[in-house]
């Protein structure tokens, strides 16, 4: 295309701004927090840090009740290494509006895979391949859904993998070409440590990719592709950095070695799964059926042909660049099937598919362009990815826009009335718990709990263990469900002679003996 470096950078920045506009749609008309229970937990750690103006060492009671034993190495401490939530808390301080700022920076972090993919593909295959790969990844439905639901660290962590592979490629190429540049392998060590801080699953994905790519390099080059001193220093950098958070690092070890419940028991020992890229779990893993559909989550089914063409292109080339991507592909396949051994959560690894499939599609167009007559090949190789990408965008942008613009509407998100009540809740004694009458979901009650800084239950009323009852008719009245409203009216009889501690109809909070 004959663009200067600065023009390329400006175009990529413009692309990322467009993608950010999409990913911040849920906040543009409604700045209140949203997501499933995972989102509420990440929000809680960041928000508490910003509002209490102190980093968390021991979990506050309302978070500890649910997450106190999630750190298997040391209970009642943070179960994730602090950097991710600290970054969100810092955003809360920067922006002023803590809630909105947390969600805004989170949208940036979760969409950074766009820039990660661009960086790797631009370096390996040029601007057009990088730009189009990035543009397509920005509208990956799986990424968008997982981001909306609340698996935030996992989204951000995947963005590191392309950079890790880039550093590996640069270092090994420099070594093999006799112009060793250890800075790249040192950066790889830092990136791996950062990756572990963000999410251990993403770290294991990165390690798997490095192992597979290394094996491919060994087979191709038939000699070592690194200097032992460089690797030792890298390992030292990695160990020194991860030692900064010993409780959380040891928790990763404890979780990895301690076993535990398998997400999809039907997959264990089912070796026939090896003959498919991925098979829908036989157990309910908490994701809708559409989540496992290629055409609904990645792109129209005909694009799978371009994925195969891209793989064929790489197999035919088999140069170092190709081995990097092939290694990434094989490692992803391995991670998707690790649940056969009773390990990992395969369906979580599925969310990384688009990061590689879209670049493979783009390479598939380059493969087709290579059949064009020689005098037009250069032009074809520049325009093929762009034309293909624009066509695919016509298919994948509308559902992404629809999903994001209608994310958690109405009662599916904390309402202004519930937010106001939750903020009032913060004035109650820290050790008090509440019961949420009128709850429409665990997620909604959890959000009220996390915004209100107090533990809130929504089932087991007869067991007691709470000091206040929230009589919340706001969702019921908005839903217009007569049975729901009638049930709440009957329950309200219990408070006929009780003076509410909080009264902003249709929400009351009553003390409970």
């Amino acid at each position, binding site marked *: 295309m004959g663009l200067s470096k600065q023009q390329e950078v400006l175009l990529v920045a413009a692309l990322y701004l467009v993608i*950010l506009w999409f990913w911040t749609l849920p*906040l543009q008309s409604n700045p209140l927090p949203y997501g499933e229970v995972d989102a509420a937990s990440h929000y809680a750690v960041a928000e508490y840090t910003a509002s209490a103006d102190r980093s968390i060492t021991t979990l506050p009671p309302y978070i500890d009740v649910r997450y106190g034993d999630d750190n298997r190495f040391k209970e009642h401490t943070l179960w994730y290494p602090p*950097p991710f939530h600290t970054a969100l808390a810092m955003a809360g301080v*920067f922006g002023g509006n803590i809630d909105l700022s947390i969600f805004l920076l989170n949208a940036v972090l979760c969409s950074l895979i766009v820039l990660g993919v661009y960086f790797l593909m631009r370096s390996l295959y040029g601007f057009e391949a990088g730009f189009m790969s990035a543009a397509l990844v920005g509208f990956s439905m799986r990424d968008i859904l997982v981001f909306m639901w609340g698996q935030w660290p996992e989204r951000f962590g995947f963005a590191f993998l392309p950079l890790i592979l880039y550093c590996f490629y640069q270092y090994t190429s420099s070594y093999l070409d006799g112009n060793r540049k250890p800075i790249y392998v040192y950066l790889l060590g830092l990136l791996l440590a950062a990756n572990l801080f963000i999410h251990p699953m993403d770290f294991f994905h990165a390690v798997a990719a490095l192992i597979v790519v290394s094996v491919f390099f060994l087979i191709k080059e038939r000699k070592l592709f690194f200097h032992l001193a460089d690797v030792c220093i890298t390992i030292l950098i990695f160990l020194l950095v991860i030692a900064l958070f010993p409780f959380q690092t040891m928790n990763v070890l404890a979780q990895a070695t301690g076993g535990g419940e398998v997400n999809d028991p039907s997959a264990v020992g089912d070796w026939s799964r090896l003959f498919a890229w991925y098979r829908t779990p036989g157990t309910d893993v908490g994701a809708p059926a559409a989540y496992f559909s290629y055409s609904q989550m990645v792109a129209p089914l005909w694009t799978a042909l371009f994925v195969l063409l891209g793989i064929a292109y790489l197999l035919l080339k088999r140069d170092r660049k190709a081995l990097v991507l092939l290694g990434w592909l094989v490692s992803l396949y391995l991670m998707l099937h690790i649940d056969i051994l009773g390990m990992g959560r395969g369906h979580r690894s599925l969310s990384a598919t688009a990061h590689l499939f879209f670049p493979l599609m783009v390479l598939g167009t380059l493969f087709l362009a290579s059949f064009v007559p020689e005098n037009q090949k250069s032009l074809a190789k520049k325009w093929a990815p762009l034309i293909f990408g624009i066509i695919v965008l016509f298919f994948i942008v509308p559902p992404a826009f629809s999903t994001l613009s209608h994310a958690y509407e109405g009662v599916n998100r904390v309402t202004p009335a519930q937010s106001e009540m939750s903020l009032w809740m913060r004035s109650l004694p820290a050790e008090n718990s509440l019961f949420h009458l009128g709850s429409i979901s665990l997620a909604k009650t959890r959000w009220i709990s996390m915004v209100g800084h107090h533990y809130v239950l929504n089932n087991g009323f007869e067991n007691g263990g709470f000091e206040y009852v929230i009589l919340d008719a706001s969702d019921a009245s908005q839903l217009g469900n007569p049975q729901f409203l009638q049930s709440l009216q009957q329950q309200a009889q219990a408070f006929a002679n009780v003076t509410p501690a909080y009264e902003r109809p249709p929400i009351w909070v009553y003390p409970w003996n």
Partner: protein
Amino acid sequence: MELSTKLTAGIITTAFALFGLWLFGFTGLKLVLLSSIVFVLPVYLILARFELSTSEKVFFSLFLGLVLVPVPVYWLGTLISFRLSIAILALLLLTLGFFMRKKGNQHHDQGNEPDVPSDVEAKQS
């Protein structure tokens, strides 16, 4: 028209800041500007000491800054005000960054130019 690296960075930062202001008011504006200064700039300046291309420095400083800058902020925030720890660490990291950059410029002025940026190789191939 060729743009200098600084001008390009200025245009991009301004575009993101205006984007934040347009959609989310002063919250968005402050978030963009302060995040750029605290998360990205210190690491970018530190990386200036090393033989990396501009785009490598930008990308690595973005990704590493978002994860590694919060590390000392967290630990200092366990002892003192979180807000104060951000301010102190930002000042320290920026000072370190400018110092490292100055050292890096001196290193280059002595005739030790960095190699051709690796991301030019893809263009040339």
